[in-house]
């Protein structure tokens, strides 16, 4: 982040660490942040009500997206079609495509 952009954010009353939370929260929630940086963010969030609220908001967003995974499975018609095609290819486990659904 450029120095002027950082200065602008800090001018809004955000501390330097709050700005870091804004920049890196998604990396942090995705567990993609280096250990040292993650520790610093976690320590700040524990003591800053604004950042804690923001973390909760973003964590809820990611949870809602993750829940979509449970909502959609391959349809039976596709499983039947694929089973027939695999059988035609000599696949010995073709019938398991259908059994998987049970």
């Amino acid at each position, binding site marked *: 982040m450029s120095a002027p952009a950082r200065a602008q954010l800090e001018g809004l009353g955000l501390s330097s660490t709050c700005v870091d939370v804004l920049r890196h929260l998604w990396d942090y929630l*995705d567990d993609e942040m280096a250990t040292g940086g993650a520790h610093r963010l976690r320590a700040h969030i524990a003591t800053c009500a604004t950042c804690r609220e923001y973390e909760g908001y973003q964590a809820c967003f990611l949870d809602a*997206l993750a829940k*979509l995974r449970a*909502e*959609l499975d391959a*349809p039976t018609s596709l499983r039947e079609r*694929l089973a027939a*095609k695999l059988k035609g290819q000599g696949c010995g486990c073709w019938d398991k495509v259908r059994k998987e659904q049970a």
Partner: protein
Amino acid sequence: MTTATYAVPTAFGDLTGASELARDISDPPLARDEARDAEFEREALPWLDDVYRFALSLTRDESDADDVVQETYLRAYRSWHTFIPGTECRRWLFTICRNVFLRSRERQRPTIDLEDGEQDAVAAGSVYAAAREKGYDDLYARLDLAPALREALDALAEPFRSAVILVDVEDMTYETAAQVMGVPIGTVRSRLFRGRRLLQEQLLTVAQDMGFAPARAAGAR
């Protein structure tokens, strides 16, 4: 972090149109091999639902998704000898799936240069501020959010949609998603952050359009 080497089958001819996806593979059946079939059943078949979801997110059409999934699994089966045991079969299947989709649409990977994603991450803070202002700061905790979220995700442009699907819905690491998409990790991060910000902006609009009641009156806090 280690990067596994894996091969992706590409030697089954070019598909030049969506209709060709549904073609029968004319290759003769493979010779019976019980060990191969047992491995295929154990490693590949459990990911059918995941591959279907990914295909649907790419095609946004159930019939096209069926064709892409079928082609993906047939290629995977015939190329099973190129799968390296011990590597992630789901990633291998997703990579085949994406290649099948891209070939079917004759679509080149979009070249979108983004910065490192921080601009979008910071901008998401502004979306949050707007949500708070309107009384929607608990929006994502609402039980009835899923349909709006699906709609917003469907409307999200590529390549942002793929990044969000792979990382947020399919729970892949940035590294694995980068391998599936064939781009550097930094690009996945940029696309992911842009996708998330766009989704959040869209959801805020949808919430208002659909008449979601704000959790509290604006300005009450």
